[in-house]
């Protein structure tokens, strides 16, 4: 689908990416920064998923009645791996945020910067 001569899905992906980047850069709360990072990740995953789309393609599962063309399965494998990586990054970040909160009593970056 086209919007102003651009693919609509790509427009959505870029917008989502920018929303995430804005959250990551502009928010002061570490947790919100992490959410922003997750939104950015989602944008990239969505971009990869759209890459696997084939016009009129069947799912690449060999059962009776399926015929070519097939949707490409590789992007899905990539996104699955990407999600695993993103979850690990989120887990490590959350653990670090917990530790920061336990030590300094705050997770607002402007308050953290005022600490000696």
């Amino acid at each position: 689908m086209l919007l102003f001569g651009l693919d609509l899905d790509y427009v959505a992906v870029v917008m989502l990416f920018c929303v995430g980047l804005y959250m990551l850069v502009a928010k002061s709360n570490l947790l919100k920064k992490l959410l922003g990072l997750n939104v950015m990740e989602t944008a990239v995953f969505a971009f990869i998923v759209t890459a696997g789309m084939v016009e009129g393609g069947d799912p690449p599962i060999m059962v009776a009645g399926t015929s070519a063309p097939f949707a490409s399965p590789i992007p899905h494998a990539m996104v699955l791996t990407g999600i695993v990586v993103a979850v690990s990054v989120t887990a490590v970040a959350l653990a670090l945020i917990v530790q920061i909160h336990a030590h300094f009593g705050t997770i607002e970056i402007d308050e953290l910067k005022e600490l000696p």
Partner: protein
Amino acid sequence: MTGPWAEALPWVIALPLVGAALTPAVAVRRPRAAGFWAWGVLLVTAVLAAGLVSELLARGPFSYELGGWPAAYGIELRFDHFSAWVLPLALLFVVIVPFSWRYLDHVMPDERRPPFYALLLLNAGGMIGFCVTGDLFNLFVFTEVVSLSSYALVAVGGRGLAAFAALKYLFIGAVSSLLMLFATAQLFVLTGSLNMAEVSLRLAEVGGGTAVMVAFAAYAVSFMVKAAMFPVHVWLPDAHAIAPSPVSAVLSGMVVKVGIVGMLRVYQIYYGAEVLELGAFNLALVWLGAVSIVMGAFFAIFQDDIKLMLAYSTISNIGYIVLGLGLASPYAVIGASVHVFNHALIKATLFLAAGSIIHQTGFRTLSDLRGVARAMPQTSAAMAIGAVSIVGLPPTAGFVCKWYIALGAFEANQAPFGFALVFGALFIFIYYIRMLNAFYFQKPVHAAVAQASETPWSMRGPVVLLASLCLILGVLGGIPLTFVEPAVLDLLPLWGP
């Protein structure tokens, strides 16, 4: 035709990764055993890596198809001349791990050792995988293995501040990894393949265009962040200074090189395809490299904390490497590629020596550490050798590469950058002179510094060994050249001016 060692290619990645997973189980009753286990695993890995290099020297680059899938469909592991970097990498780990056995006594309680060594093994496995993979998506996965273990390793020793430094590193690192994933996806959309060689071939058919350029730009920015070049270096100093010293040695010496090796890989794809005119980008690299050298040195001069000073010096040295790559003349690229290795060696020497001094005295600033050379002569001598090497004075390891890069600047008719390089070296010399002056020629201000004893042998051995290697490689500078020269000359006929 491949020899028996070619079969070891998947094992050199699998061994440290499996070893990492098993570490907590091995050390469940005796946490201190984790250190010996990690060392053993890395030792075997280093032997395998040596076998792979011998195969490379005997028969040239070779591949391994994972799971028996042909390269265009499955994941291909490829061992070429740039991959030979895994041997020094594994060997440096073998030297650094014994150092951490005793060093960790002051840093963390015994029960936290198994996770620490597991992370170190993961880091090693990820970097080895990064160097030998021939698949773009696999490259991303190994980058994330390296990055994630690095974030955790920064935080492992300390509490609040370390966690904050690690989180800052994580946010910037995660965005750069995302850019890399995006670029990978972009190339996949354009070419329908993830295999590097295949992508390069198909890119030639696709031709140039905005999308190809966007993918290149995303890769370039991503790897610049990983390598901590000047405008995007902000995560490095805190993370590298606050981590335990063996970790600083790993991060500063090897993990930042992930960005450089990645850049070389992307160059291989794009130069092979000849779709983009990269002259302007190379010029940008040269300028960024020159600015990194000067700014790294400039910040380092004002540091009092020795580890922070060493961390800023890493930014300068990455600047040298990037400058050499951007100059794109044979001498410069050879010098830069050799510096990838030599800087790892020198920085490991410096960080381990600095770690020993901090460990024995409890102080970490230059003003507190005055006169420490009298109490710790051997460690200080190693530190001095490291300092002379990193400035690039003959006859040390640093001289060879910087000389080559400077020659390359004149070869590429970019003489001003040759002078910038020499000027940068002088700048760097100033702050190392400051350090040596404080260590050797000033009177101790603290009793603890005057009465400090030398480190135990398990710590002093690695430091002395690394320092002597800095000297030996200065004299026998040709050894790394054997690996780098064919790789660079393969690349350069395609390399634009």
